[in-house]
C-alpha cells in the first residue's frame, strides 16, 4: 500500500520502458498508433513477446532497413514493418476475431481522456466540424484481456486527461485498467483511480493537478 516515486517526470522513452516492464514474457501484445509504438523498442530480447497488428499480422518485427520497405507489409499506422520467424497472416475478420475474442493479452493505446472508472475517449476530439474516423480503436479498446493507456497526464493546454467523467465521445466503457503517464502510473476501474507510482510529484500534488481524489493501489504489479 505504498507508492514508489521517482524524482523526475518521465520522458517518452522512460514511459515506454515503464509500460514494457509490466508486460509478461510470452505475451501477445497490440500496440496502438502513436506513443504506444515506442513500447516495442523496450521489450526485452528473448522475452517471447509477440506483436499483433490488426491489419492482419501476428509476429510483427521492427521497421525494415531503408530500401527494404514492402508496401504490402505495413502496420495499422500504415508504416512499413517486417515479419519475424513464426509470423502468420490473416484477413480482417480473423484479425479482429483474435482481438475481440480476448486472445491478445495486452493492448496499449493512446488517449485523449480516460475516466477514473476506466472509460476511454481516444477517437474523436468532439469538434463539430471535424471529419470523423474511428478505425480499429473501439475494437482494440474492448477486445484485449487487458487494455492499458499510455499518454501524457496533461493535454497541451494543461487540462488533465485523467478525469472523473470523459467529456469527449467514448471509445469504450470501463475498458481501461491502467494508465501510464509522464507523472504517474494510475490504476482505473470500478474502484476509481488509484495511484501506483508517481514521478516528480507527490500524491497530494497529483490530486490537486487532476482535481480528483486518488486512492492507492493494492499492488503495483499485475
Amino acid at each position: 500500500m505504498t507508492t514508489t516515486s521517482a524524482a523526475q517526470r518521465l520522458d517518452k522513452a522512460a514511459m515506454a520502458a515503464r509500460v514494457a516492464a509490466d508486460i509478461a514474457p510470452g505475451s501477445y501484445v497490440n500496440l496502438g498508433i502513436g506513443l504506444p509504438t515506442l513500447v516495442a523498442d523496450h521489450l526485452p530480447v528473448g522475452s517471447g513477446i509477440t506483436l499483433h497488428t490488426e491489419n492482419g499480422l501476428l509476429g510483427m518485427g521492427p521497421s525494415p532497413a531503408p530500401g527494404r520497405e514492402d508496401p504490402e507489409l505495413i502496420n495499422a499506422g500504415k508504416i512499413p514493418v517486417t515479419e519475424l520467424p513464426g509470423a502468420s497472416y490473416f484477413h480482417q475478420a480473423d484479425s479482429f476475431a483474435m482481438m475481440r475474442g480476448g486472445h491478445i493479452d495486452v493492448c496499449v493505446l493512446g488517449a485523449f481522456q480516460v475516466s477514473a472508472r476506466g472509460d476511454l475517449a481516444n477517437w474523436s476530439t468532439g469538434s463539430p466540424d471535424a471529419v470523423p474516423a474511428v478505425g480499429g480503436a473501439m475494437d482494440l479498446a474492448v477486445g484485449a484481456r487487458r487494455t492499458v493507456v499510455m499518454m501524457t497526464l496533461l493535454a497541451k493546454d494543461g487540462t488533465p486527461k485523467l478525469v472523473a467523467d470523459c467529456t469527449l465521445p467514448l471509445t469504450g466503457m470501463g475498458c481501461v485498467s491502467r494508465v501510464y503517464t509522464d507523472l504517474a502510473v494510475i490504476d482505473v476501474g470500478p474502484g476509481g483511480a488509484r495511484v501506483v507510482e508517481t514521478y516528480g510529484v507527490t500524491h497530494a500534488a497529483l490530486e490537486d493537478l487532476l482535481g480528483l481524489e486518488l486512492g492507492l493501489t493494492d499492488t503495483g504489479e499485475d
Partner: protein
Amino acid sequence: MTAQVYGTAREALGDIADGAIVMIGGFGPAGQPVELVEALLEQGAADLVVVSNNAGNGEDALARLIQLGRVRKIVCSFPRQVDSWHFDAAYRAGSIELELVPQGNLAERIRAGGAGIGAFFTPTGYGTPLAEGKETRVLDGVPMVLETAIRADVALVKAYRADGAGNLVYRRTARNFGPVMATAATRTVVQVSEVLPVGAIDPETVVTPGIYVDSVVRLDSTTTLAGARPAAGRATS
C-alpha cells in the same frame, strides 16, 4: 459459376449499375485494387454506395469518384486521412453520406453478409456514439450491440495469385479485406499479378476458394516487389 479470366481491368469489371453497392478492398496502400477502381471511374456508374476501409487518397480513383459526386454514401472505418481532401470536402458540403463503422465491426458485418448470418451481437462500440439507437443486450455478462450484415453487388479485390479455377492467395498484409469482401458480393472481380494453371495452388493454402470469384484480370502493375517472397509455395522445411 466458374471464374473467367479477362485481358483488361475494364473488361473484368464489366457493367456496374447506377446505385450499385461496391466493396473495395485494401487497407492503406496494401491490397488496394487500384486499376479496378480506375476502371470503375472510367465505366461511369453513379449514385454508388461504397464499402471500404478508407475514403480515397490524394487524386486516386476512389477520391475522384467522390469528387465527381458519383458516391452517394460510403460505409467506412477511417475516411479521414492526411490526403483525403476530396472526401473531406464532400463530407463538409453534405454531399456524401458517411456510415462510420469500427473496423472490426466492418469486417465482421461483411463476413456475416458472405456467410448468410443476418446480424450479430458484438461488444465493440457499446456505450459509444457509433452505437446510438442500436439494439443492445447483455450476453454472458458482456454488454453488446446488434450489428447487421453488409452485402454488395460487386466486390473489387486485389490478390496476389489466382489459378484458373479462381482460387486466390494474397500477399502479406495486403490480404486484409479481400477475403471477406470476396464472399459478400453478388459479383467479385479480382486483380492479380499472376494467373496459374488450375491445380497449381496447393489446396491447403488457398485463402479464397474459387467459388467466390467471378472475374480475374492479371495486371503487371499489380506485381509486387522484385525478389519478394512468394505468398504460398515456399518449402516449409
